[in-house]
C-alpha cells in the first residue's frame, strides 16, 4: 500500500484537474472580475460604495430584500411545519405520496409556477372571483405587482426547502422520548414546546437559513409578481446592468449580496456538523 500511495496522490490531482480548471475559468474568474469592477469602474476607488450608501433607492431595495426574505421564511416555516409533522405521522404510503407532491412542485419549472400564480392572482383571476362570489370582498384584491404577490409566490416556491430537511429531522426523533415526557407527567402542550420543538430545532434552523439565503437571491419570481416599488437586490443588480450599463454600481451591490450569502452559508455549515465526504474514513 505504501508503494502506491505517492502515485495515488497524483491520480487525485489528475481526476480533479478538469473540474477545478473548469470552475476556475468559468466561475471563479468571472466572479472575481465582477467583484473587482466595483472598485475600478468608472475610476479606481470606493466611490461606488459611497454612492450606494448615499442613494435612498438602494436603501429601500435593501430593506425590501430583507423584508421579503424574513416574511417568506416565516410563512414557509408556518406552512412547512404542520406538513412535515403530518408526513411523519401518516402511514408510509401516504407520507410518500405527499413527499412526491413536494418533489413535483420543487422540480417543476420555476417560470411555469410563477406564471400560474400570475394568472391565479390577477384581478380577474379565479381567487378574486371566488372570494367575490362567496361575498367576502366586493372589489377584487390587488394581489399581483405588489408585495403580496411576491410573498405568496416565493413562499409557495420555498415550502419544499423547509419540508425536506425538517421532515428528515422529525422522522429521526425517537417517539419514545416524547412518550417518556408524557409518562413523567408533562401535558401535551409541554411535550410539544419543551421536547418536540427543541428536537426539531436542527431541521427548522437549517431549513429556515436555506430559505432565507435563497430568498435574498431570487430574481424571477419578484421580477414577475412584484411591482416597481418593491424591487429587491437581484433585480436592482440586473437593472443597473441592462438599463443603465452601470457595472460599477451593479458590482458593488453584488459584492454585498455575496457577502451576506457567504456569511449565512458559513453559519449553515456550522450547524450541519457531519461532512458529506470526510465521514467515511473507515478504510
Amino acid at each position, binding site marked *: 500500500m505504501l508503494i502506491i500511495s505517492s502515485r495515488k496522490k497524483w491520480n487525485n490531482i489528475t481526476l480533479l484537474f478538469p473540474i477545478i480548471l473548469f470552475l476556475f475559468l468559468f466561475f471563479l474568474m468571472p466572479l472575481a472580475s465582477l467583484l473587482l469592477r466595483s472598485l475600478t469602474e468608472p475610476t479606481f476607488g470606493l466611490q461606488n460604495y459611497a454612492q450606494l450608501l448615499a442613494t435612498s433607492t438602494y436603501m429601500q431595495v435593501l430593506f425590501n430584500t430583507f423584508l421579503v426574505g424574513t416574511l417568506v421564511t416565516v410563512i414557509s416555516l408556518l406552512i412547512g411545519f404542520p406538513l412535515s409533522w403530518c408526513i411523519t405521522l401518516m402511514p408510509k404510503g401516504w407520507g410518500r405520496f405527499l413527499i412526491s407532491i413536494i418533489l413535483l412542485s420543487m422540480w417543476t419549472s420555476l417560470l411555469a409556477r410563477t406564471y400560474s400564480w400570475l394568472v391565479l392572482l390577477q384581478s380577474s383571476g379565479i381567487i378574486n372571483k371566488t372570494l367575490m362570489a362567496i361575498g367576502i370582498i366586493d372589489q377584487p384584491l390587488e394581489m399581483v405587482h405588489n408585495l403580496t404577490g411576491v410573498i405568496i409566490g416565493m413562499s409557495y416556491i420555498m415550502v419544499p426547502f423547509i419540508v425536506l430537511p425538517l421532515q428528515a429531522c422529525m422522522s429521526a426523533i425517537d417517539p419514545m422520548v416524547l412518550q417518556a415526557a*408524557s409518562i413523567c407527567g408533562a401535558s401535551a402542550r409541554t411535550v410539544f414546546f419543551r421536547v418536540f420543538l427543541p428536537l426539531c430545532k436542527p431541521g427548522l434552523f437549517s431549513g429556515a437559513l436555506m430559505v432565507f439565503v435563497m430568498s435574498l437571491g431570487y430574481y424571477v419570481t419578484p421580477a414577475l409578481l412584484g411591482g416597481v416599488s418593491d424591487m429587491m437586490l437581484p433585480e436592482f443588480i440586473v437593472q443597473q446592468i441592462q438599463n443603465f450599463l452601470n457595472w460599477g454600481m451593479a458590482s458593488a451591490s453584488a459584492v454585498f449580496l455575496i457577502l451576506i450569502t457567504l456569511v449565512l452559508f458559513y453559519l449553515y455549515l456550522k450547524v450541519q456538523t457531519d461532512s458529506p465526504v470526510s465521514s467515511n*474514513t473507515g478504510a
Partner: protein
Amino acid sequence: MLLSHGSLGWKLKSSLYVITGVIAAFLALPIFFIMALSFGSSQWLVFPPPSWTLKWYERFFDNPQWIESAWTSLQVASLTSIIATLLAIPASFALVRGKFRGRDYLYTFFTLPMVVPVVIIAVAVYGTFLNLGLTGTLFAFVTSHVIIALPFAIISIINSLRLFDKSIEDAAVICGAHRIQAILKVTFPVIKPGVISAALFSFLVSWDEVVISVMMASPNLQTLPVKMWSTLRQDLTPVIAVASTLLILLSLFIMIIASFVRKQSNHR
C-alpha cells in the same frame, strides 16, 4: 405520543390532516391549473374556461420561434447534462476515495455554485462572455449551465459512491483485473443509478434555467424559458401556458425516470 399515529387526540389529528390537505392542494394545484388552462379557449385565461380547444397548441407549433427555442433548450440541456456528469465522475472518485487534506474545502468549492445567488453567477459570466464576444452562442449557454448543474451532479454521484464498498473493486483487482477494468465492470454498474440521476438532474437544471439564459441569449439564439420570459413581460397569452405544460411534462417525465432508477437500485 405527538409522533405516533394512534395516540394523537382526534381533534388535533383531524385538524392536522385538514391543514395538510389544504397545503398539499396549495402545492399541487397551480401546476395542474396551468396545464388545464393551456386547453382553455379564453384569451384572458378565464377559469373555468368557456370551452376547450387546441388552438394555443397550434399557435405554439406554428410559430418557428417557439419551436426553435424548444430545440435549443433540448440541445443545451443535453450537452450540459453530458459535460456536467463527465466532470463530476472523476471528481467524485477523488473526493470519496482520496485521502488528502482539504477534501472538505474542495467539496464546498464544488457546491458553491448552488449557494451563490444565480443572479450573481449570471451577471459575472455575462460580463466575462460579453468582453470575449461569446454571448448568444451555444458555448456560452452550455458552459454557464454546467456551472450551476455541477453541484447537483457531484452530490448525487458522491452519495452513491460512498455506499459502494471499495473492497469489492479491490477484490477484482487482486483477481487480476486492471484497475480501470475493475471500475468499469464492477464499480460502475453499482453506482450507475447515481450517475444517471446526476445526468437527469443536470438536464433538468439546465432545462429550467431562466436568469442566466436571459443574459446569454441573443435574438438569434434563445432557450424556451427565455422565449417564455420575454413573451411574459408583454402579455399573459395562453401560448405561455402551452410552453409551461411542455416544461412541466418533461420535468415530470424525468422525475419518473429518476424514481424508477432509484427503485431499481433499491431492489438489488
